[in-house]
C-alpha cells in the first residue's frame, strides 16, 4: 500500500517554518502519526498555532513520562483532528528536579483534568492552571508523586497472604 504522507509533510513544513527554533526532531512515523519535540517555554504558542491554523482542534490526551536515566520528565500531548486523519505526538522535555511548564488550558479546555492527573502522579507543575490540585489521589499521598520511578512505596511489600 502506498503511503500518502502529503498532509503530514505539509504540517511538518508549516510547523518548522513558523517555529524554527522551538520545534525539533519532527518526523513522520506513519501516514497517520507525526511526532515532534517542542521547547517547553513556547508550548502555548505552538498549541495555539496548531489549533487555529493546522486544524488540530482536539486534545486526545496529555500525560507525562518519567525518564530517570536521562534525568528528565517528558510531557506528552496527543493532538488529533476532526478534519484530517492525523495524530500529532508533541513532547516537551522538562528537568526532573523542577518540572514546570505553562498550562495549555487556555487553548484546549479539556487539558484541565489531564494536567491535574499529571500533577498528582508525576509532580509536573503547570503554571496558570485554573485549579491545580489532586484529581483522584487522596490528600495524604499528594507530594509523593507515585508514578515516578524512584517512588519508595512501590512495589509494596506488606501483603502477607498472597494467593
Amino acid at each position, binding site marked *: 500500500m502506498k503511503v500518502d504522507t502529503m498532509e503530514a509533510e505539509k504540517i511538518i513544513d508549516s510547523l518548522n517554518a513558523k517555529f524554527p527554533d522551538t520545534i525539533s526532531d519532527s518526523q513522520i512515523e506513519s501516514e497517520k502519526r507525526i511526532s515532534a519535540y517542542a521547547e517547553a517555554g513556547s508550548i502555548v504558542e505552538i498549541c495555539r498555532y496548531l489549533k487555529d491554523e493546522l486544524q488540530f482542534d482536539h486534545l486526545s490526551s496529555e500525560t507525562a513520562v518519567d525518564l530517570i536515566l536521562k534525568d528528565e520528565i517528558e510531557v506528552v500531548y496527543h493532538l488529533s483532528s476532526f478534519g484530517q486523519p492525523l495524530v500529532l505526538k508533541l513532547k516537551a522535555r522538562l528537568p526532573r528536579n523542577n518540572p514546570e511548564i505553562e498550562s495549555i488550558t487556555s487553548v484546549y479546555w479539556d487539558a484541565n483534568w489531564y494536567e491535574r492527573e499529571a500533577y498528582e502522579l508525576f509532580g509536573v507543575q503547570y503554571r496558570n492552571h485554573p485549579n491545580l490540585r489532586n484529581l*483522584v*489521589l*487522596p490528600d*495524604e*499521598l499528594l507530594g*509523593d508523586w*507515585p508514578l515516578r520511578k524512584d*517512588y519508595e*512505596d*512501590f*512495589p*509494596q511489600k*506488606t*501483603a*502477607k*497472604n*498472597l*494467593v
Partner: protein
Amino acid sequence: MAEELTSQSYEQPAPKEQAQEESIPGVITTTSREINEFLKKTKIQDILNWGRKNSLWFMSQPMGCCGVELIVAGVAPMDTDRFGIIPRNSPRQADVMIISGYVTRKYFPALKRLWDQMPSPKWVFCVGDCSISGGPFYESYSTVQNIDEIFPIDVFVPGCPPRPEAIIQGFVEIQKKIETKKDRGSGYEG
C-alpha cells in the same frame, strides 16, 4: 421554634465522663451487655443463632468487578432468598458486609465507617483475590493490604472473580460457623 433550629449546633457533643455504675442495696442492676454475655452460656443462644443464620442480610456495596457477581447472586436463578440472604441498601439494616474488591487508601475510611454503622452482631467476609491479598494490585501504591488484620473476617471466598455459587457457599459457611458458635462476629472470644 425557628430560632431554636438555627441556633442548634450539629457538631458532635463533647464526650461526657462515664458515669460510675451505682450499686443500689437490694437491687441487682444490669446492662444489656451483661444479659448478652449471660445468654451466650445458655441454650437460648442456639435459638438466637438459628434466627440469625437464617436472615443474613448483606449490605450492597460492590467495590470492584466482583460486585457484578454479587448482582448475579441476587437474581432469580440463584435464589439466595431461600437462605434468607437479602441485599439491603442501608448499613444500619445489614448483618453481613462483603468486601468484594480492592480496598484503596481513599475508600478505606468510608468502608470503616460503613462497618461502624452496622449494628452488632455483624459478620464480614472477603470475596475475590483482591480483598484477600491484593490480587493483581498487591504491589500498588494505592491499596490497603492485609484487610484481615483490620476486620474480623470469617470466610474467604477466593476467585477472580468467584462464581455466584461460591458466594452463596460463603454465606453457607458463615451459617455453619454461626450455628457451631465459631464465628468472630458474635463476640464469643472477647
